[in-house]
């Protein structure tokens, strides 16, 4: 293997450990997964591997014998596996099992913890940007309430007083809507438990919060929701992911254009997509989009972590994120979940 070329890796075991390995290795340029095996055909790691077009097998022995790998990582926990690997592996292939594999696994767990902290930090950062706009959104209805109340104090005609009182009632309703959207966001953010979720509902919830994060006054929101099955997911994670994509889309269009939200069910994938009519993203930038600290926003306005976090959140649910962009056609971000996430 020449240096600079990726290490071809086979992962044995597609449970929690194997899934985490897939997640980590797919975001590492220096590692290429050439196969994943698990005796259980429904193991979460196998589903994710299929989604990523990585060859899968339910028979570890045949995958090992097939060759094409530089390294075999065994996270099956099966005491018989090291012997099987030694017997079947082609010469020159290294393997990682037993304590060495456990060491890798504990490093990965550490890395995952860091990622979760990062996600949490990103959510807090979002809340921070929401705060300024919330002040604006709240001050408007407060202004109407104060204004109409002071007009009532001087008004003698009952019909007019009634009209102003109605305006106050509507302003209060608007305030309570704002409170509802925000508490929905913060509750969902800290719930952390997978629940049954309709993707279109989460897209709508994200739109409600997005107007606090960016200016949507001149963005037309188009909804193309085809009926899709509910999926099992953490609602806070999904809102965060959709919110990031909506805000990015609106900002890419400089606040003017169309955002098309869609849900559809194709093959064995449940998909939610967000399309913006902003400038296209050339291929060389598209590759870097999800890398940490990559930002196209002018100095200091973007952390470069938002899309990295989106991808982490999507991968955590066994899904993947795809970006398509053509000159003059805008950009579409699609989040695809395997049917196994069906609620």
């Amino acid at each position, binding site marked *: 293997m020449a240096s600079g070329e990726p290490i071809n890796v086979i992962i044995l075991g597609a449970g929690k450990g194997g899934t985490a390995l897939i997640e980590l290795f797919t975001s590492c340029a220096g590692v290429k997964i050439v196969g994943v095996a698990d005796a259980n055909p429904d193991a979460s790691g196998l589903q994710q591997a299929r989604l990523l077009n990585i060859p899968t097998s339910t028979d570890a022995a045949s995958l090992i014998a097939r060759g094409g790998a530089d390294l075999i990582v065994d996270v099956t926990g099966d005491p018989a596996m090291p012997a099987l690997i030694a017997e079947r592996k082609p010469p020159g292939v290294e393997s990682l099992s037993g304590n060495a594999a456990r060491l890798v696994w504990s490093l990965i767990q550490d890395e995952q913890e860091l990622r979760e902290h990062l996600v949490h930090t990103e959510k807090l950062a979002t809340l921070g940007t929401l705060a*300024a706009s919330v*002040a*604006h*959104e*709240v*001050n*408007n209805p*407060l*202004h*109407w*309430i*104060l*204004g*109409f109340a*002071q*007009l009532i104090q*001087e008004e003698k005609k009952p019909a007019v007083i009634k009209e102003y009182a109605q*305006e106050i009632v509507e*302003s209060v309703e608007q305030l309570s809507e704002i409170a509802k959207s925000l508490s929905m966001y913060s509750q969902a953010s800290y719930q952390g438990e997978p629940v049954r979720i309709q993707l279109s509902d989460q897209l709508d919830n994200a739109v409600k919060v997005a107007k606090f994060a960016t*200016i949507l*006054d*001149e963005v037309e929101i188009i909804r193309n929701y085809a009926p899709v099955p509910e999926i099992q997911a953490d609602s806070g994670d999904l809102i965060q992911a959709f919110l990031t994509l909506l805000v990015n889309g609106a900002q890419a269009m400089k606040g003017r254009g169309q955002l098309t939200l869609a849900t559809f069910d194709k093959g064995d994938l449940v998909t939610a997509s967000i399309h913006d009519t902003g400038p296209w993203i050339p291929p060389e930038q598209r590759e870097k989009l999800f890398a940490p600290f990559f930002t196209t926003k002018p100095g200091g306005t973007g952390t470069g972590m938002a899309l990295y976090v989106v991808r982490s959140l999507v991968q955590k649910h066994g899904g993947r994120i795809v970006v398509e962009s053509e000159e003059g056609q805008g950009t579409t971000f699609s989040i695809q979940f395997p049917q196994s996430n069906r609620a």
Partner: protein
Amino acid sequence: MPLWPFGMLTKESPGLGRVLVVDDEENVRKIVRLTLTKAGYDVEEAEDGGKAIEVLNSGENPLMVDVIICDIRMPRINGVEAIEYFLAQYPSIPIIVQTGYPDLQLSTSLMKQGVVDYLVKPVERDKLLSAVEKALERRSIFKF
């Protein structure tokens, strides 16, 4: 009661002065209109910066407007852009900003550019009235 700016007497309007309120929220315009009309002013309305410019340039003498009350966050031409235009084209018309954003940096920068007051919503009636009075005094200084 404010002093009647001298120039006012030559105008068609018999009121205390003519105020243009620029805000995309109908309720905000309504409150300003009702509050100021009760106090003896005439009120013109515009829902965004573009409409405000139209009102000011609508063939009538732009000097018919004595005070502009302008929001910041509005669709199309936003408040900052509109205010820049007002200050450049009609430097004698005092401008009051009335916004939901308590933005110290923006308020300082706008006041430096010549905006007479920066009111953060919710704005009490008396605060609005005294801001308009203050603005009119400034307007009358320009007149002499």
